[in-house]
């Protein structure tokens, strides 16, 4: 694939690239439907019950049944809602999720659009989703949605900061923003992975990522038990599916990013296991991250808004800054 990207842009090359992109998007859609299915299954097992098991063998067609239901629903737009904003909001919430996936390298020979500023591009684009949520909350003409939208805007903006700063430690160690270079910097085996020297940054990144994803314990914007689904309360049918799709695409994107930044990307952990192809390691670590997100969702209660803001600004940010300083100092000492 690398030679395909580096060769000249002829018409056939364009078609080939287009097909590869389409394959990625299909994989993503497949991932999203089965991520939802596995989430329900895993959380079901944790709660001593079987998850979906009636539609299709082992319930495998459950997601398709849900998506079909959402597709054939009536498109309800509240009367006094701001029509343009109401219709655009899901699109703005959802498009950045797809755009971000272009820069993630899955294996050595599948780098996709490996930008030189890949990490910066990633974090910048993922911030655009907040705009969509705010628009959705405002345009719905519903007090609950407005509260949810404002909460989500405040939350996502505040957690962008520790997210980025915790990653600076990794960038300092690698010396580049290019995602494949970061993975190359972790070549070697498990003791070379970034999670060990940057353990504190890993934890901060994890907490900030869960908050960016609007998942429990930070799922105030969609707190079921208070705001009855927050900013997407007035959305039904396929527009609601857009918001859900955006959320699960971000789960995909953030799990992939964690794998790349901290868990060594496509490298095997031990020399004995070198024979397994890189893409399989990537998928394994990625699945572990996704499972971890589900596990947290099943266990933890929700934080309150002021506690969440307090956590973001007063706890995570200082620790992330201290981490950056210490990393810089240690790297200076090593270099001398």
């Amino acid at each position, binding site marked *: 694939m690398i030679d395909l990207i580096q060769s000249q842009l002829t018409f056939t090359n364009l078609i080939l690239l287009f097909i590869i992109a389409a394959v990625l998007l299909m994989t993503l859609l497949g991932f999203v439907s089965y991520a939802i299915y596995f989430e329900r299954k895993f959380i079901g097992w944790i709660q001593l019950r079987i998850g979906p098991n009636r539609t299709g063998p082992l319930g495998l067609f459950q997601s398709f049944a849900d998506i079909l239901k959402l597709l054939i629903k009536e498109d309800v737009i509240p009367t006094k809602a701001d029509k343009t904003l109401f219709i655009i909001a899901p699109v703005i919430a959802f498009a950045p999720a797809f755009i971000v996936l272009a820069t993630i390298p899955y294996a050595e020979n599948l780098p996709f659009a490996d930008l030189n500023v890949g990490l910066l591009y990633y974090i910048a684009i993922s911030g655009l989703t907040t705009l969509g949520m705010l628009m959705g909350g405002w345009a719905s003409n519903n007090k609950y949605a407005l509260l949810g939208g404002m909460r989500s805007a405040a939350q996502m903006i505040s957690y962008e900061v520790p997210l980025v700063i915790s990653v600076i430690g990794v960038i300092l160690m690698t010396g580049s923003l290019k995602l494949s270079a970061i993975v190359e910097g972790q070549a070697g085996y498990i003791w070379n992975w970034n999670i060990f020297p940057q353990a504190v940054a890993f934890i901060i990144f994890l907490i900030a990522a869960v908050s960016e994803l609007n998942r*429990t314990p930070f799922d105030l914007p969609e707190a079921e038990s208070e705001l*009855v689904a927050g900013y997407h309360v007035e959305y039904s049918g396929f527009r609601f599916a857009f918001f859900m799709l955006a959320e699960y695409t971000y789960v995909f994107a953030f799990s992939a990013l964690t794998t790349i930044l901290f868990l060594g990307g496509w490298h095997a952990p031990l020399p004995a296991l070198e024979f397994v192809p890189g893409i399989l390691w990537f998928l394994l670590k990625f699945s572990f991250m996704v499972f971890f997100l589900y596990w947290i969702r099943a266990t933890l209660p929700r934080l*309150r808004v002021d506690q969440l803001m307090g956590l973001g600004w007063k706890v995570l940010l200082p620790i992330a800054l201290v981490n950056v300083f210490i990393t810089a100092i240690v790297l200076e000492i090593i270099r001398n």
Partner: protein
Amino acid sequence: MLRTEELLLNVGPQHPSTHGVFRIVLKIDGEIIKEATPVIGYLHRGTEKLAENLNYTQIIPYTDRMDYVSAMTNNYALVNSVEKMMQLEIPERAEFLRLIVMELQRIASHLVWFGTYLLDIGAMSPFLYAFRDRETIINLFNELCGARLTYFYMRVGGVKWDAPEGWIEKVKNFLPEMRRNLDEYHELVSGNEIFLARVKGIGKYDAQTAINFGLSGANLRSTGVKWDLRKDQPYSIYDRFEFDVATHPDGDCWSRYVVRMEEIKQSIRILEQAVEQFPAEGEIMGKVPRVIRPAEGEVYAGIESPRGEIGVHIVSKGKAEPYRLKFRRPSFTNLQILEKLLVGENITNMVTILGGIDIVLGEVDG
């Protein structure tokens, strides 16, 4: 300048965490509540009025449906008042059965509270774990009296069914399992920092306020007042068993949680003693006249239900139906403090406080 105004938010009758059809009209400024007005009556079914035309045995199924989460204690409240008015003697085995059933019901009710409280706070799993234990208790009740939720088990003068073969053994085997599961719940929830941050210091009131508002049950004991009707005005055979009354000095939601979990432990303790001392044989129904016709007069008798003091005030004119039957319902009285507690709180805390008071709408509306 930006014009800000207060928002009128209607936490409507249909809402996932108001524990039933309950409505609060909130005036909020940003996220702080300025004024809260609870609106009740969506589940009013006219039980007290209906009771004027039914004789005492026919009213008992209606009491099941008032506080549907803990139906046995409701049954007992009514039956206790009638027996007090008629000065009836209850046989020993019937008393033991009543006590065992009421304590099991207390555990089941507190499990529902635990599960739904944590669900409101955001954790999904403890709900299902609590219902696993509640399912065991409900199956025990199903074997005993033939229903899973509306038992109609007590009668004036005794109980209806005797314990079937092996039922006491099953209760005995359930108790150590419940102890283990209670430890599991503490492990999962009580140390969780997020839960503690959500619950500590919220909804605080002191003992004098609690007494002025007429609170009872765990809401009163969470302020440090040691008042439990099972010990202070003993009824049935509670004076034969030793158990502690759980209290906690702070008056916030955390102390209510601690008090209720401790009450489950004390109920297990009472049950262990009761199952040991269970009489091997005996009558289950005392000497009761065919038609229950109390003498003219009135009586009030209160007992300790999982939510507080439930009492029945009967005015009888000597007929088979009561002249006036009034239920003193604990959820209704406990709810009065909500308006005072909510001023100045976050909206998120409203759900925490409402859950901590532990109301059942069937009981609030009657």
